[in-house]
């Protein structure tokens, strides 16, 4: 049983969960409920609409807060810092962590002993081996700072090194292939040159590109290698000299896709990147403009199609079940995952990321 909404003031509505939830994330059920109530109690309509106006005013006033900007660069760097701290604090399996009164102090103790054990057991990292094998003179760039470091390559490509990362290449660069060796993490923006493929060797993985933007992450102490594509295409394969001549078994990555290579199991896992970005396409013969992502009674199949086009990610769903469903929402500036959530909430569905695609499960409309 719901409260006596017909006696509510506008403020009362704004303190009511059913009212506020419907304004923030409408569902078919909540929409039906309020439409029903408004019909049954026409005398309450004025107050109800005043509450809506008041709510919209509050949302508008909080818009600046809601839209607080945080650059992708900062997000990435912070994540790098977090992962490094985690890697350093990896405890040996048997040791119980000390009971911490002030956890920072205890953590630094674990840090010192942890590194000692780790260095003792680790074989020579792949990066060192590859670099030592280069006969010609070598150019190497190291990033010891806490922010990204930009390195320009002789062919005009740009490498941005994450903290605690290094890249090296033979000099002169790019006679046949443009080959670089990476330890750590870097973002690459590679100039197009079909005649000279750009190859990134990182741990056991080789990433081959013609011209594109992508990120490779391969730290010696981590047990996986990750490659993430922002634009263009890359081919990623396992660096095994015996097989390379015949066929390269690898993975093709498109924008917003990434692959994780497990160094223990030698397995590739293809995924959608954590934060898909709207793909910028070079000028093509068809006019492609980014959709506004503001919808009013828009058929869901159309919404899904616009999402697919904008992000370059395949979305599979039950076309029959959702053909007549509609969506009213403003998704501007929402991350990709939230856009999907809004669509799913509208029809009561869920979604999964599988093998570089989105699968929408279930859902129906009234």
């Amino acid at each position, binding site marked *: 049983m719901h409260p006596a909404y017909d006696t509510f003031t*506008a*403020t009362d509505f*704004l*303190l009511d*969960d059913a009212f*506020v*939830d419907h304004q*923030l*994330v409408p569902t078919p059920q909540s929409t039906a409920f309020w439409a029903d109530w408004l019909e049954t109690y026409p005398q309450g309509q*004025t107050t109800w609409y*005043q509450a809506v*106006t*008041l*709510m919209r*005013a*509050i*949302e*508008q*006033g*909080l*818009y*600046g*807060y*809601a839209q*607080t900007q*945080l650059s992708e660069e*900062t*997000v990435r760097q*912070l*994540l790098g*810092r*977090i*992962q490094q*701290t*985690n890697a350093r*604090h990896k405890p040996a399996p048997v040791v119980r*962590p000390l009971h911490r009164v002030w*956890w920072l102090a205890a*953590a630094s103790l674990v840090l010192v002993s942890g590194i000692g054990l780790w260095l003792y057991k680790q074989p020579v990292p792949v990066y060192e081996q590859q670099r030592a094998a280069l006969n010609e003179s070598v150019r190497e760039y190291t990033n010891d700072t806490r922010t990204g470091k930009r390195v320009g390559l002789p062919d005009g490509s740009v490498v941005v090194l994450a903290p605690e990362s290094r890249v090296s290449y033979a000099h002169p660069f790019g006679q046949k292939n443009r080959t670089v060796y990476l330890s750590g993490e870097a973002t690459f923006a590679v100039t197009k040159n079909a005649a000279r493929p750009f190859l990134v060797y990182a741990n056991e993985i080789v990433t081959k590109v013609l011209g594109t933007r992508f990120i490779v992450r391969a730290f010696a102490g981590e047990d*996986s290698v990750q490659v993430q594509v922002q634009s263009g295409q890359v081919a990623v394969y396992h660096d095994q000299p015996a097989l390379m001549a015949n066929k390269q078994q690898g993975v093709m990555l498109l924008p917003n896709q990434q692959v*994780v290579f497990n160094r223990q199991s030698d397995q590739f896992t293809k*995924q959608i990147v*954590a*934060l898909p970005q709207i793909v910028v396409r070079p000028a093509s013969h068809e006019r492609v403009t980014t959709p506004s992502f503001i919808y009013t009674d828009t058929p869901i199949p159309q919404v899904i199609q616009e999402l697919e086009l904008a992000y370059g990610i395949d979305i599979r769903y039950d076309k029959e079940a959702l053909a007549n469903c509609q969506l009213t929402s403003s998704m501007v500036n929402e*991350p990709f*995952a939230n856009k999907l959530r809004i669509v799913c909430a509208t029809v009561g569905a*869920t979604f*999964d*990321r599988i093998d570089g695609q989105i699968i929408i499960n279930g859902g129906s409309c009234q």
Partner: protein
Amino acid sequence: MNEQQLWQAFQKGDEGAYTQLYQLHIKAMYRYGMSLVAASESFVLDCIHDVFTELWAKRDRLSAPDNVRYYLLKALKNRIMHLLERKERPLTPLQETDYDTLWEEPDADLIEALEIATNQQQRLQRLITQLPPRQQEALKLRFVENMNYDQIGAILAVNQQSAKNLVFRAVEKLRSLLISFSVIFQLIFWV
């Protein structure tokens, strides 16, 4: 995977799930942290770093939260407050009632600020900044982060009813300001 599954995977040591949780909530944590301590971005980022590394270190001892965002915002606030208290005595949080008398009548400064503002959104934003900080925080948690009153109470260290009262006072105050300035705001309101 939904968030519950992501959380369980992360607890088992899945770094990909851990990273996804980070990506899903980092912007919300950043804006919330900055709203608490506007002065220092690097301090807020440090605190977020501390929350996530602590999470990873303790992952097999955590319980699964009903609402991950609430859990993370609360952890972030705790960390910020903990570090601030060590550095300096912060403004001791006053009882909510102390503030109300200071905001009785709209003052000349506010009128001027409203007239200078170039659009409706700025005007509304200015009205909200008129409110006591804890009322503003309660509004953000309810209307932007979509938390329930139990969660808001936990973050603000009050009970559920007090959390509701904060929002109630904020909404009532805004309503009366909008009526007072109805000519400027041109919203359709009652008498």
